């Protein structure tokens, strides 16, 4: 059970004490709900009745569209998806290589779906910080996981939405008729990162390689200076602006006047909900991983609901000494991998599968990497909804990537602002707030962890699994990414 009473506030917000800062957001949400009573009713009904028909009926009444199937376009489904437990980097996965983790996810997927290896047409993985030895980590992992060596594989990178890109690439391959069965996934191993020699040292080593005579070698070596030895770390900051993401998040939170308390409260919500979901066994996409030489890892280890008092003690991590983003309200460095099995619907049915969800319209956006680095969801959400012909009210399940509490809250405020919509998005009116009671109900990147390349698949599976569990029809997945980019996708529940 949830260790803190405050956790419950997020489940049934209108019954809780009003001393939360977030309460204003919530009351707003309530006011904007078209038919609160119906929601309340459904909420109460769910535990009582498992009659899916009744729920489906209730849901379909309010929907703008019965389904997002389009004539003459193949329906594309997620058969199922898995992930390794997401671990704080430097813990049980620390001696692995990225392809080991990816392999674990792939094996897990094979095991979960029992898909015959030879029907898989293609494999795509997303990753951000590439291990130089396995730069096409998709191929190395697939070979090691026992997939057919006749199945090609490639790796994509798009910062925190890399596996989103892997999935939508798969969608494109299937929709265009090139493939029927594609495995998409993502992996990140932050326990080990490629630290390089300095450019000067590298240049010297390369020159040495080419030198033919001893004299040439000596003359190259004589140019050696001690500072050649200073290593070069992979960039933690945005290349275009030289600003770290945490710094940008702190400025973003300040720009939207989001207090430290609000951010800590949101982080606490994430951890509490994740803990609850973990305890209730809802995180069914997690597959155990027997790490060589270590115990079997069975669950995420970053979920740590704390107290607001404890969190308030932390010092700001980026803008010192007065910033608001701290270690406690940011996502942590994470190791993990995920994979999903995507098929053309007719292929899945022919093979006897019962898919979990349809992958529907998706949208990539990008904006100013300096001041709007993390506002991707705000831009992508209305666009994907419009493309799909849906409204915010049609969405039953929201799964937003939580890079920082401040980032989520800034996106919510931006979506709730007419001024922002008019001045920066070219819209007449605000996007509107996603209702918080439908929002990241099983925790998010803040608590579950955020292996950069693997988070996208987790979001899609969380949306699909929540739709099945909670009985809605449409899920909205959204995420921000370095470079000022963003992504959103509609996930539609597969009819039971």
């Amino acid at each position: 059970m949830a260790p803190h009473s405050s956790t419950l506030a997020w489940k049934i917000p209108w019954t809780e004490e009003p001393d939360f800062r977030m309460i204003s957001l919530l009351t707003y949400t309530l006011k904007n709900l078209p038919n609160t009573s119906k929601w309340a009713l459904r909420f109460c009904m769910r535990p009582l009745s498992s009659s899916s028909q009744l729920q489906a009926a209730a849901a379909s009444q309010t929907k703008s569209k019965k389904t997002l199937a389009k004539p003459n376009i193949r329906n594309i489904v997620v058969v199922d998806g898995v992930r390794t437990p997401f671990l704080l980097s430097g813990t049980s996965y620390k001696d692995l290589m990225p392809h080991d983790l990816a392999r674990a996810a792939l094996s897990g997927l094979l095991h979960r779906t029992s898909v015959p290896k030879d029907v898989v047409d293609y494999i795509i993985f997303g990753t951000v910080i590439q291990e130089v030895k396995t730069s096409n980590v998709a191929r190395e992992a697939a070979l090691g996981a026992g997939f057919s060596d006749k199945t090609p594989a490639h790796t994509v990178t798009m910062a925190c939405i890399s596996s989103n890109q892997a999935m939508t690439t798969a969608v494109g391959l299937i929709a265009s008729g090139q493939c029927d069965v594609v495995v998409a996934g993502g992996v990140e191993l932050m326990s080990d990162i490629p630290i390089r020699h300095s450019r000067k040292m590298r240049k010297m080593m390369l020159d040495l390689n080419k030198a033919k005579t001893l004299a040439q070698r000596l003359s190259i070596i004589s140019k050696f200076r001690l500072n050649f030895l200073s290593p070069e770390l992979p960039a933690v900051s945005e290349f275009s602006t030289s600003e770290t993401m945490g710094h940008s998040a702190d400025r973003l939170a300040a720009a939207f006047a989001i207090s430290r308390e609000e951010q800590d409260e949101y982080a606490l919500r994430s951890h509490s909900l994740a803990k609850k979901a973990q305890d209730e066994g809802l995180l069914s996409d997690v597959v155990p991983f027997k790490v060589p030489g270590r115990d079997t890892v069975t669950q995420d280890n970053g979920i740590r609901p704390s107290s607001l008092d404890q969190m308030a003690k932390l010092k700001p991590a980026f803008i010192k000494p007065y910033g608001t983003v701290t270690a406690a309200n940011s996502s942590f460095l994470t190791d993990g991998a995920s994979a999903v099995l995507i098929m053309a619907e007719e292929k899945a049915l022919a093979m006897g599968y019962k898919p979990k969800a349809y992958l529907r319209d998706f949208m990539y956006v990008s904006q100013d990497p300096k001041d709007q680095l993390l506002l991707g969801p705000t831009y992508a959400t209305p666009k994907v909804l419009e493309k799909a012909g849906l409204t915010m009210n049609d969405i039953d399940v929201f799964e937003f990537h939580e890079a920082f509490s401040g980032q989520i809250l800034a996106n919510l405020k931006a979506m709730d602002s007419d001024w922002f919509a008019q001045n920066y998005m070219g819209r007449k009116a605000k996007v509107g707030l996603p209702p918080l009671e439908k929002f990241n109900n099983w925790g998010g990147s803040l608590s579950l962890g955020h292996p950069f390349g693997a988070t996208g698949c987790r979001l899609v599976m969380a949306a699909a699994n929540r739709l099945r569990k909670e009985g809605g029809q449409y899920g909205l997945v959204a995420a921000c990414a370095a470079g000022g980019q963003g992504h959103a996708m509609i996930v539609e529940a597969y009819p039971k």
Partner: protein
Amino acid sequence: MRKMQKGLFYLIWVTDRNPIIFQKASLVLPLLRYICRSFTRSSALLTRTHINYGVRGDVAVIRINSPNSKVNTLSQELHSEFMEVMNEVWSSSQIRSAVLISTKPGCFIAGADLNMLNSCTTSQEVTQISQEAQKMFEKLEKSTKPVVAAINGSCLGGGLELAISCQYRIATKDKKTVLGSPEVLLGILPGAGATQRLPKMVGRPAAFDMMLTGRGIRADRAKKMGLVDQLVEPLGPGVKPPEERTIEYLEEVAITFAKGLADKKITPKRDKGLVEKLTSYALSIPFVRQQIYKKVEEKVRKQTKGLYPAPLKIIDVVKTGIEQGSTAGYLSESQTFGELAMTKESKALMGLYRGQTQCKKNKFGAPQKEVKQLAVVGAGLMGAGIAQVSVDKGLQTILKDTTLPALGRGQQQVFKGLNDKVKKKTLTSFERDAMFSNLIGQLDYRGFEKADMVIEAVFEDLNLKHRVLKEAEAVIPDHCVFASNTSALPIGEIATVSKRPEKVIGMHYFSPVDKMQLLEIITTEKTSKDTTASAVDVGLRQGKVIIVVKDGPGFYTTRCLTPMMSEVIRILQEGVGPKNLDSLTTSFGFPVGAATLVDEGGVDVAKHVAENLGKMFGERFAGGSLEVLMQMISKGFLGRKSGKGFYIYQEGVKNKNLNSDMDSILASLKMPSQPDVSSDEDIQYRLVTRFVNEAILCLQEGVLATPAEGDIGAVFGLGFPPCLGGPFHFVDLYGAQKIVDRLRKYETAYEKQFTPCQLLVDHANNPNKKFYQ
């Protein structure tokens, strides 16, 4: 000739080190406001107009926002309102600390109200103003309730003095946030305590550097120096415009620090680094101190050549404070401030400042169509320079040349110009790349059909310019302006082959384009007003100071310089050595010696101009013989570019030696010198009076529209001594009669070349007549 100005960019120590005042500063002169305000002051006791004041918890928030002005200036009204508010803060038992902030975007306080100084007629009055400010800031400094200055935007002069009297400073890390003491550039000193407080706050070396160069300090550097205590990052968009929210955020942060200071949770004292500790220890030894003063004074003497009194006085005042205590220091500061404000140098520099402000405005109004696509023809030194100052302001620019190597050289010049800024850390490599992507290099006229303005910067040859104009006009749209970058070819003649002469204009840039601030725009009788407005608009966007003159041989700048150059040659022929001549000109205040100037600009160019203008203006432009230049050219002595001119130029050799081969040329063309007009002073005045006389003739003939443009053109384009304020200020301040007397004296020796023009004679005859009233 256009290359003639190369080298002039190190104008003089004042203007070349002054990124602040002459470029960015806005010590605006709210004359009107000043007059109006004195009317309403008595009734405005309660309704404050400059300051809005509120209390947040136990923190007083004092917000400055002077009405009807882009900037806040430390005027007498602001002064008294601030005093009033502070008295309330000090007497209120509820208030424990205060935040001082400006709600004007991009400006904290840009400096003292210059009008306040200009309206004073005696040094005592100025001293009085200084003492009042000193008193107020001393009270502020001794405040038991901590005051936090929250700085966003320019914090200059009096604004900085106010800020450093507060107990704590927080500044936004914005490009617009600049702290500095630019008073020296106006020939005065910081008169409200900075000479005493700055050395204690940032150490003597840094304080001297700030006060003697007038250099503006960006926020991040100010933090490192200890000039500010905290930085606040500028914010992006939220639910309000970014600038507005940034100021709000700055205020919020400042309030938490004000509370922290009042609660003694934060101490305003900062940890000094090892170097600083060592320096301050060394400076506690009197002998070391004396050596440092001596060193600084020596350096200043060398650079100012005794022509600028303010820098030495600043050293004196700082020294007085340190050696004799702060009472003596403050007294010396206020008295010296009064003295300096009354000097001719200060009046000249302030006049230049005013002129520069005027030349940063577009008096022709907004053009009908803003130039978005620019095309530059000719990727030489000038063309590439023009492209550079355009792309770095975000203007899409095509750079066209006829051969790939020539184009490549030009592109490399632009890249290098931008990359140098990356090395100096004023640009990031990413910003450089984005700017460089605004440049399209090509060998044909593709894309010219979308150009809004074409600037040609091809070789100075009328036929070539005609060809380029015709080629361009075949492609460019009807609204497109065709501008010619030339230093001497009359624009009217270039325009003769144009189908639409109303769209043809001259834009005379100075080399190196990215360093020289002046742009001389030349209009013909046919040039339309909108074409002029468009050219001025582009020039302003390129960051230029602009004078607009009428077409004619040599326009304004080249025309003034040519008779002076003619005199240079004659003086050399009369037996004065190039080194001696150089030192005579630099000691008069020119940034570059006259002989060096010929070398830098190119002997061939000098000859070309002298020949052409000589034909046009006849006797008045005579003097030295063209033969000198012609013989130099025939021997390959083209100046720096060929390695030899009057001097020998070698790569990596700093001290240049005289070219001994010149002796025979000069000896063979020797002219008899006339002893009664050949003293050092006479030589200096022969050069300057010819320049000044020609400048005034340009005003008389209507080539110049205003004296201010004449002064700005002479100082910013030709290196006329800034301490004299330009030819027109020079006549006003030193007296037209004295100059006419000089001219008459030289006229007896050299005839028409020194005949004073009518306008100058008029001024001499009527002492009340001034170019600047």
